[in-house]
């Protein structure tokens, strides 16, 4: 399937919006163009066709669908949100015949769903390729890095992930020092058009620059969970403070409070929680 065909198949068949978006999970739709862009990069490097692919934080499943359409041998989608998985299952059934993607309801951030998760010492290397559009850590500081850890723990081939371009230096450093990535490369800079989703979004949509990363794990590399936990807790506390300050600004009528989507949003933000 050519890139443009993939994009139109995705936009015709996949409802990538969340029925009940949850801000704490930073649920934003991944549009068809973005998903096709990720798959274009991964497929060109031979990381999809005939491979065992895992989609971490699969949400409504557009990357899982795209990987299946690009002839991945098996796709497993993991998400913490049951409502999103329900929408995902509907999206899979919208195809004729229905697409077979394994869905698991589990917490990617703490790895508690899997062998090789945070608390488990053994095993864990299972899949060839991880594809993901993780939370950017705007709501829960360090969520992006926690997702990367999960990916490095289960992939032994390649990891494709989207991160805000503004975090490029940080992501590269974390990938190399914490996760011992053999390679960390930005394949493309893409535009992520974030439709206003939550009550505080004022603009109809905001376009942000995101990097499509490709990481290659080093075989046998061990991630130091304890050191990383401390760092993540630190990130989370700083971010919690920033969030408190920004919500106070919001109450006072200030224009803070913008997260990932930027800016507050008025009456049109109907679906916000």
């Amino acid at each position, binding site marked *: 399937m050519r890139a443009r065909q993939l994009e139109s198949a995705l936009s015709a068949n996949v409802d990538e919006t969340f029925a009940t978006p949850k801000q704490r999970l930073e649920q934003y739709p991944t549009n068809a163009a973005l998903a096709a862009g990720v798959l274009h990069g991964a497929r060109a490097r031979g990381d999809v066709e*005939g491979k*065992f692919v895992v989609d971490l934080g699969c949400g409504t499943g557009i990357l899982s669908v795209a990987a299946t359409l690009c002839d991945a*041998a*098996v796709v*497993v989608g993991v998400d*913490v949100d*049951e409502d999103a*998985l329900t929408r995902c*299952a509907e999206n899979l059934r919208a195809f004729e015949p229905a697409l*077979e993607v*394994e*869905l*698991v*309801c*589990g*917490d990617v951030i*703490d*790895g*508690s*769903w*899997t*062998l*090789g*998760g*945070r*608390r*488990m010492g053994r*095993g864990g*290397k*299972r*899949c060839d390729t991880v594809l993901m559009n993780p939370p950017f850590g705007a709501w829960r500081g360090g969520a992006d890095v926690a997702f990367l850890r999960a990916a490095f723990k*289960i992939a*032994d081939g390649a990891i494709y992930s989207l991160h805000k371009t503004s975090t490029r230096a940080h992501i590269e450093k974390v990938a190399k020092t914490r996760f011992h990535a053999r390679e960390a490369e930005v394949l493309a800079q893409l535009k992520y058009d974030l439709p206003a989703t939550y009550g505080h979004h004022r603009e109809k949509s905001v376009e942000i620059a995101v990097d499509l990363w490709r990481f290659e794990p080093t075989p046998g590399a061990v991630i130091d969970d304890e050191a990383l936990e401390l760092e993540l807790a630190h990130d989370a506390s700083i971010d919690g403070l920033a969030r408190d300050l920004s919500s106070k600004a919001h109450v006072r009528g200030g224009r803070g409070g913008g997260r990932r989507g930027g800016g507050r949003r008025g009456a049109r933000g109907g679906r916000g929680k």
Partner: protein
Amino acid sequence: MRLLAHNMLACNAKGVVNGFPLKIVPKETREVEVDFNAEFLTHMLPKMEWSAFVNAAKEIGLEGLPSEIPDDAASDEEFLRTFHHALLEVHVEEGTLVCPESGRKFPINKGIPNMLLNEDEV
């Protein structure tokens, strides 16, 4: 949930040292044919927790898998077909996964295992 996914799942609740493999108590299964791909199956073999896989297959009524992966697995088509069927073609639609250590149960509804832990279990 197919056995491919089951092979990755574990119970990591607080205090559990070895929450793998989860025992499957199936209530409803269905079969969906998948194209046989010997190359992919051979590629998957070293990624499997084999004894967990063989036990899980028995729990959902699938016999015929050897307790050890045969030396000549890549060229043993009969073996690969048995592996293929158990790995990819049988879905547990409804049922329960049980932690071997704590007995914690995880439901499987509409084919989706729910591995979420409560706050006091994390």
